[in-house]
């Protein structure tokens, strides 16, 4: 137990508050900028008090697009694309890795360990190495500019399989045996025993994968050429134009704020389960 000295407490609080400010301040600026007009934002220094244009700006970006120059579609459409992409990736990932971990842990089949290690080895390949061949395959299959092309290559995951495998290994053998004696076949066992026990792991994984899927930039950039299939992160980039046209910063900031909302909501809603999933060891 460290000695209690008042100034240590003050120091600790001070550091935490400074850290908080460093992280939160840019968010605040973004929010303020999204409530003002373009000129007010462009003129330096920008006022730090929220302006009156909140509703106008947000309505415009959600439904109207940012005006002719940059050609980004309505933010509403892009949010939907991002949402579908993130949900598809996280749900697909969880489903596939649950099943593959189940197969690897509970069944004996030829080349079982070989399959597992092959999956594991793909973890060691960085995205940049895999991306060109993956693009070729997706393009050849005609999946460009489609939800399938956006999500399928990202659904196969080694980390999630590994996570579930480790979790399944902690389930006592006797539980499996008790289920067998009760008359449960493998799928029954999977549905009635494994899945409920995996709930917290699934929740934790869902949060992580949702944010991962939501923030995908490189892959969607390659795979989509039509504006109506852009996810929101690409949309934000498109709004920040270089060169001749003027960036409407207030609208860009509004878009950025909107883009942050769903992941934040997901984390807040799943928070309880997220921590439980990482820490919980109760049997």
């Amino acid at each position, binding site marked *: 137990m460290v000695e209690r000295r008042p100034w240590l407490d003050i120091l600790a609080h001070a550091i935490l508050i400074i850290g908080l400010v460093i992280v939160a301040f840019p968010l605040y600026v973004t929010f303020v900028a999204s409530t003002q007009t373009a000129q007010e934002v462009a003129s330096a220094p920008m006022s730090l008090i929220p302006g009156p244009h909140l509703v106008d700006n947000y309505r415009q970006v959600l439904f109207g697009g940012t005006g002719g120059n940059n050609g980004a579609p309505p933010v509403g459409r892009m949010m939907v694309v991002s949402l579908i992409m993130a949900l598809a990736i996280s749900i697909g990932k969880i489903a596939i890795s649950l099943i593959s971990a189940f197969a690897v842990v509970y069944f004996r089949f030829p080349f079982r360990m070989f399959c597992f290690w092959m999956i594991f080895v793909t973890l060691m390949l960085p995205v940049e190495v895999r991306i060109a061949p993956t693009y070729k395959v997706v393009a050849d299959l005609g999946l460009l500019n489609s939800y399938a092309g956006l999500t399928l290559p990202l659904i196969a995951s080694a980390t999630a399989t590994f996570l579930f495998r480790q979790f399944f290994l902690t389930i006592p053998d006797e539980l499996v*045996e*008790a289920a067998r*004696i*009760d*008359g449960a*076949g493998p799928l029954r066992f999977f549905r*009635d025993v494994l899945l409920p*026990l995996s709930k917290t792991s699934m929740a934790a994984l869902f949060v992580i994968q949702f944010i991962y899927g939501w923030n995908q930039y490189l892959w969607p950039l390659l795979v989509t050429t039509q504006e109506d299939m852009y996810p929101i992160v690409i949309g934000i980039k498109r709004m920040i134009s270089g060169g001749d046209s003027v960036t409407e910063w207030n609208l860009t900031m509004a878009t950025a704020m909107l883009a942050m909302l769903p992941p934040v909501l997901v984390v807040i809603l799943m928070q309880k389960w997220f921590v439980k999933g990482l820490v919980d060891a109760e049997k």
Partner: protein
Amino acid sequence: MATLSFRNVTKTYSGGIAVIHGIDMDVGDGEFIVIVGPSGCGKSTLMRMVAGLETVTGGEILIDDKVVNQLEPGERDIAMVFQNYALYPHMSVFESMAYGLKIRKFSKDEIKRRVDAAASILELGHLLDRRPRQLSGGQRQRVAMGRAIVREPKVFLFDEPLSNLDAKLRVAMRLEILKLHRRLGTTSLYVTHDQVEAMTLAQRMIVMNQGLPEQIGTPMEVFDRPASTFVASFIGSPPMNLAEVSVDGTGLIKTLDGTDILLSSDRVPQQVRNKKVVLGMRPEHMVLHARGLQAEVEMVETLGSEQLVHMRHGKTQLVVRATTRELNEAKAKVGAIIDIGPDDRHALHWFDLETGKRIPGL
């Protein structure tokens, strides 16, 4: 309720390690059989073969005269109580007990009826909505038993169910199991390493050692006439005193390190004369100040009304179990040299020196 039969059952793991060398036994309908033995003797393996959790390498296991070697555990109509309870952590007590019935598509009413009946027998009625983590060890064990009871199976299998409980609870649960068997009369197979559990619960027991059944018999048969030195020293606490001796033609007994054991010659049968054998005398069947041998008291363990006196005679270690009063009268303190001998009212046990088996006819 069913008969259970083992026909020359063997088990060998891939790699050639044989763990069970051949069991032949017929269990009658409603019998309570205990498989007892030290760790690694194969008792759990044997039971798991009955359950279907291990494959049978050779021989057959029959439940109700039907060979079950190829049947899945769920198809054998058996129920098992595990050492670690194996309760489903996410299911309530009611759901855990109902699970097996739900899979077999029993009606909701029938499930409720059976679960309620089992819960009242085991006094779990007020716990039906709880999760396993909200239960104590003893309660969890009763839920595990409840899960087995509701199935109304042909055979109950108990895999060291009391090993994880504290001593007092173990005694109480032993009685519960006995009462349960009296009430339900289901054929039961019970595995334990605790010889007290074996003696108190079994109608018949199999004493196993390294994959071989050393003796199959009722508790009193196993206690009174152990079939080998292994059984003799395994059953009974403290273990039987075993002395390697050579007997001459007149019935004079000498331990192999040269000291005498004086017994009247009518207690030394003809079959053991002129041979080297193992002489067994139970600690509780020995008396102080009797003709036999002189031994020095090395240590005294007190149990309250009785004491265990650890003595040494030459190189042989012996234990005598006597009441506190007898010991006080004999002034048996550490270092004292006292005569001890076998009680005339109880038999001596003679075993072959090479094989350890009981000498036939004695």
